[in-house]
C-alpha cells in the first residue's frame, strides 16, 4: 500500500514534465512522422504518397549539396572554435589586470541575437559599401574590393561570424572546467620540472577530458543545426553556396522571399527532409560519442 502510494506520488510529480514533453516534443515529432508519407501543402487535403517523398529526397541534389555545405560549415566552425576557446580559457584563467573585462567582452556575442548580429555583419562585409572593404582599401591592404559574401568567400565569412558568436560560450565552459583542476597538481608538476607546454598537454588537456567531450558534442550539434544567422546574412546564397540542411528544411516549411514564386509550403516533403536531417545529425553525434568512449577506454 505504501509502495503504491509512493509510486503514485512519483507519477503525479512526473506528470507535468510528461505533459510538456508530450505536447511540445512527442506530438510535433509524431505529426512530422505522420506527414512524411503525405503530400500536404498546409491547406486542403493531405494525400497519401507512401515513400514518394523519400524517393524525391534521394534525387534532390539541392538537399545533398546542403548536407555537404553543412559539414563544411560545421567542420570549419569546430576546427576554429574549439582550439580558440580553449586557448582563450587558458589565458583568461591566469590572474592579470582586466581579466574580468576581457572575459565579459569575449562572452558578449553569446547574448546577442544571432539575427541582429548577422545584420550588423552584413553592414561590415557587404562588398559594395561594407566597412571592412573600405578600411582595407584605405590601408592599401587589398587592390580592390573583396566580395566577402560572393560565391568564393561566403562560406568562409559565415564560418568566421559563427566562430565569433560561439567562442565566448565555449570559453566559459572551458573556464569552469579549468577551475575544477586542483592547483596542487600544477605545483607538483612544476617541482618535477615540467614546463608550461608540458603542463598544458599532460595535465590540463587530460584533466579537462570530460568537459572537452561534452563541449565538443554540444558544438557538433549546434554547428550542424545552426542556420539563423546564415538565413539573415545570405539566405543560403549566393547560388546555394551557404545553404545548410536546416535552412533548406525551414524553407520547405516557410518559403523565404527567394522562393516566393512557388509559394506553397511543402509540409509533407519538409517533414521527410527534416526527418532525414535529424537522422544525419543523430548519426554524427552517435559516432562522436562512440569514438570518445573508445578513446576513454584506451586511456
Amino acid at each position: 500500500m505504501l509502495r503504491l502510494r509512493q509510486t503514485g506520488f512519483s507519477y503525479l510529480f512526473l506528470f507535468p514534465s510528461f505533459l510538456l514533453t508530450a505536447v511540445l516534443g512527442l506530438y510535433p515529432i509524431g505529426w512530422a512522422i505522420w506527414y512524411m508519407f503525405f503530400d500536404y501543402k498546409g491547406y486542403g487535403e493531405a494525400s497519401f504518397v507512401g515513400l514518394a517523398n523519400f524517393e524525391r529526397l534521394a534525387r534532390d541534389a539541392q538537399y545533398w549539396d546542403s548536407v555537404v555545405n553543412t559539414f563544411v560549415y560545421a567542420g570549419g566552425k569546430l576546427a576554429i572554435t574549439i582550439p580558440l576557446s580553449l586557448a582563450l580559457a587558458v589565458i583568461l584563467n591566469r590572474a592579470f589586470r582586466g581579466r574580468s573585462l576581457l572575459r565579459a567582452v569575449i562572452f558578449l556575442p553569446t547574448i546577442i541575437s544571432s539575427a541582429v548580429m548577422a545584420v550588423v555583419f552584413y553592414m561590415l562585409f557587404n562588398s559594395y559599401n561594407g566597412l571592412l572593404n573600405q578600411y582595407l582599401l584605405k590601408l592599401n591592404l587589398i587592390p580592390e574590393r573583396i566580395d566577402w559574401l560572393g560565391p568564393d568567400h561566403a562560406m568562409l565569412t559565415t564560418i568566421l561570424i559563427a566562430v565569433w558568436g560561439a567562442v565566448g560560450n565555449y570559453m566559459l565552459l572551458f573556464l569552469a572546467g579549468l577551475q575544477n583542476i586542483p592547483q596542487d597538481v600544477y605545483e607538483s608538476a612544476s617541482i618535477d620540472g615540467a614546463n608550461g607546454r608540458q603542463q598544458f598537454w599532460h595535465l590540463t588537456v587530460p584533466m579537462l577530458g570530460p568537459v572537452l567531450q561534452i563541449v565538443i558534442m554540444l558544438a557538433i550539434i549546434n554547428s550542424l543545426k545552426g542556420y539563423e544567422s546564415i538565413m539573415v546574412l545570405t539566405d543560403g546564397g549566393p547560388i546555394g553556396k551557404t545553404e545548410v540542411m536546416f535552412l533548406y528544411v525551414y524553407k520547405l516549411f516557410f518559403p523565404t522571399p527567394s522562393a516566393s514564386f512557388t509559394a506553397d509550403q511543402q509540409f509533407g516533403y519538409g517533414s521527410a527532409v527534416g526527418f532525414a536531417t535529424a537522422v544525419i545529425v543523430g548519426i554524427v553525434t552517435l559516432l562522436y560519442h562512440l569514438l570518445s568512449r573508445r578513446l576513454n577506454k584506451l586511456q
Partner: protein
Amino acid sequence: MRMKKLGIAATIGMLAFSAAACSGGSGNNGNNGNNGGNGGSGNPPATEAAGNKEPAGGNEAKPQESGKKVKLSYWTGDRHDQDYITEVVKSFNASSADNIEIELVVKTDDFNQAIDLAYASGQAPDLIRVKENTIQAWAKKGYLEPIDGYLSDELKQKFPAIPDFNQIDGKLYSLPNYGSTLRLVYNKDLFAKAGVAAPPKTLDEMVETAKKLTEAGKAEGAYGFAQNFKSTQSALFRSARVIAEANGHGGLGYDFKTARYDWSSYKPIVEAFKKMVDDGSTMPGMESLDIDPLRAQFAEGKIGMYISFSSEPGVYQNQFPAKIDWAAAPVPTTDGQVHGKTSLLGGQWLAISAESKNKEAAWKFMQYMYGDDILKAYQEKGFGLSMVPHIASSAGKPAINGIEGFMPTENDGTWPLEPTSALKLEGIMAPDAFFKYMLSGGDLDAIVDDLNARYNAALDKAIAAGEVKAEPDPAFDPMKLK
C-alpha cells in the same frame, strides 16, 4: 545509452518540427489584440451586405454599442507609399464613427513569409496587401475572405473584376488600385559622364553601355548595372521577365501558344546578363543585394542602370531621396524591336483575412481606402498609376520626378496568368539555375532543357491534379493584350 540516443534525436526533431506543428492550430485567436465588441464574426458577408452599401469613403455606419475600440491590423509590404498611407490610416482612426482603430504594419523584405508564419501561428492580420503573385496562392490557402457580398452595384461598376488577378474561381477577393509598369531605370548623370546619349535599345547595347558606365564611374565606386540577387526570383522575375515579354514571350517561362514551358526565351537575356558580370560591369556584392539596398545605392549614384517597377519614383521622392538626375525608359530587346507588350501588373490592393473576427469593420476600412479622394491622391502623389477607370480619367498626372518614363503606353498590357506560381517544382528553380550560370558558367542549352523538362513535368502534374488549366492558344498575340 539508448535513452540518450533517443533523447538526442528527440531534441533535434523537436527543433525541426515544432514550428510546423503550430500550423495544425485552429486559428481561433485570429487577430491580435481584438477587443471584440463587434458581433459580426462568423456572419456570412451576404447577410450584412444590405445594410452596408454606402459608397466608398462612407463613415456613416452605426457606432459601436459597446463603446470599445475595435482594433484591426493591416499588414502591407509596400514601403514606397508608407508616409502617405500612415497619414490616411491616422485620419481614419481619428474620424472613425465606428470606433475602429487600424494598426498599420509595414514589412518589406520578408512579407510573404511573415504572412505564412502569421497564419500558421494563428496571428493573422485582419487586412492584407495582396499582389498579383500572392493573391491566387493566398486565396487557395484560405487566407482571404471573398468580398462579393459586401459590394454594392455601384462599387461593382467602379472597380472592374479581373479574372485570375482579383477574382479567383468566381469569387472576388480584392479591388484594383494602381498598376505597375516595368522599365529600365538609369542614372542620367553617369550616362552624361560616360558620354552615352540615350538608354540602350538592344541587349548588346545594354552590355556595351554598362561597360562604358563602369569605366566612367568605377573610380568613384559606380558600376554600370545591378540587380537585387539576394532573391534571384525577385531579381530575374522583374528584369529578365520584362525583357522576355518585350521579345514576345511569356515573362515567367510559359508559352501561351503551346501551353508548355520554354525557358529558351531567357537565353539571350541571361547571356547578356552574364556578359555584364564577366566584363566586371555589375555592382560587386550584387549577389547579396536586396532591392532596398540596391535603391539606396542608386540614389547615391553608384549604379548606372537597373530594371524595376513604377514604384521607383515614389521611393526616390520619399524613402531614398535621389542625389542624381535619373529617368526611366522602355527595356531593351534582343533586336531593338518590340514584339510583345510589357506587363502592366496590378488589379488588387487590400484584402480581408478569412480569419479576421471583425470582417465588417475590416470592410469599412477597405471601403474608406478605396474612396475617390484617397485613390486620386495616390496617383497624383506618384505612388502608382491608377488602374481604376473612373480615377484614371479624373485624377491629375502624378507630380513626381521620374514618373514620365513609367506612364503606361500602347506597349504595356496585362498578360494572362502564367501557371508558374501554382507548380510544385522538384529541384532547382529557373531563376536560381540562370543565376548560377551567370556566376559560374556551364552549358546553357543543357540548363534550359533540364528546366523545360522539370517545369513541364510539374505542369502536367498540376493539370492532372486539377490545380491548373492550360490550353494551347495558337492565335495568342503578345501585342494584342488589353
